[in-house]
């Protein structure tokens, strides 16, 4: 489950950034700024797509947006939210 989710999220990030780096970057790679390089616009589109695809409203649930720290934290957060259903 987490394995599939990880590759889905990597795919989504690759589509958003228009490059293939997210496909094989280490899980601890940061999403914002220097890591994957998402800015506030890219981050917003990511959250919108996650809400549409998985029904998880990260912006409403995770005030701190700690889940956006890295590829790994995002997958872990999503997986925990989906597991609760």
């Amino acid at each position, binding site marked *: 489950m987490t394995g599939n989710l990880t590759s889905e999220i990597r795919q989504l990030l690759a589509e958003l950034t228009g490059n293939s780096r997210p496909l094989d970057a280490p899980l601890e790679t940061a999403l914002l700024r220097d890591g994957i390089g998402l800015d506030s616009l*890219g981050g917003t589109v990511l959250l919108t797509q996650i809400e549409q695809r998985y029904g998880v409203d990260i912006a409403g649930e995770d*005030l701190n947006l700690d889940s956006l720290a890295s590829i790994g934290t995002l997958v872990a957060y999503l997986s925990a939210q989906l597991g609760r259903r």
Partner: protein
Amino acid sequence: MIKCVIWDLDNTLFDGVYLESDVPPAANATLAGVVHELAGRGILQAIASKNPPEAAQHAERVTGHAFAAALCGWGAKSAAIRAIMTELGLTAEAVAFVDDDALERAEVSFTLPDVLVLEPQDIPEAAGWPPFSPPVMTDEARRRGELYLQRRARQEEARAFGGSRDEFLRHSQTRVTIGRATPADLPRLHELSVRTHQFNSAGSAVSEAEFADLIGSPSYEVATVRLADRFGDDGLVGGCVVVTGGTWQVPLLMMSCRALGRGVIDAFLTWICRTARAAGAAQVALPCLITPRNVPLRIALTGAGFKVGPADHNRHGTGAHRDPRTGRTAVYVRDLGEPLADLPSWARQP
């Protein structure tokens, strides 16, 4: 407040149907007049039409207006409106949609309930309603349509550009200029406090008189941020109010969504933190409304190393007590002992 009107073409802006006419149809004179009237108030004009792209060019010729965005194709109108909202950085509440076809109007109303959906015969009167009458008119507002055209040119070039976003910002000769607010900035600062939502920490209007008091007060600093590049000059796109001290308090941070994706908010936050640290402060505290609309600002805060302070966690707890739709406030805190990013080379400070 309506910031953009999205027009259908066939039997709406056109007197006739583009693909069914031997001679391409003329503009509907009344509605073309409304386009010009609203554009003059700083409201953007856009096109969503089930037609080939040439129809939009024809619309520009017959109405004499250069539209801020045009989406022609055969997909759902709601999808076209969504794409235009993304391109122009708008939320659904800021959009009006005009279409003669009842089915199209129903599809948009159902899918995007926050969009104001109008029949063509209603728009001339609706143009007189308060949501179409901005309370203040600044130079930036009057030039808004022109600024969005520059934005279109910039986005087209960005799509074709191979490098990273930072490389594109440099390639476009981006200039972010941070300065201290002066009385000449008052109307635009007020306007930003009314119009910005995606990048607004406080979410309430601040009058020119209130800003004047803040500028005159020894307890407050009001900073402005201006943006320009080789595509054009966007003018004053953001501002913040600061109370200096051991902890710098930022009761208001706001930025135009026009500056979205151009490195401005990141540079501005870096500047605030670096200036606070240079003045001897240990942290920056920024109370921020928690709404679905200001997610871009909260992402920028997270990216700049701000964390929601512990006090807020205590107050709001977790789970059932928290309602993300009610517009609560959380205090974002940046510990200045942690490493700070460098101010980008293209940002100038006072």
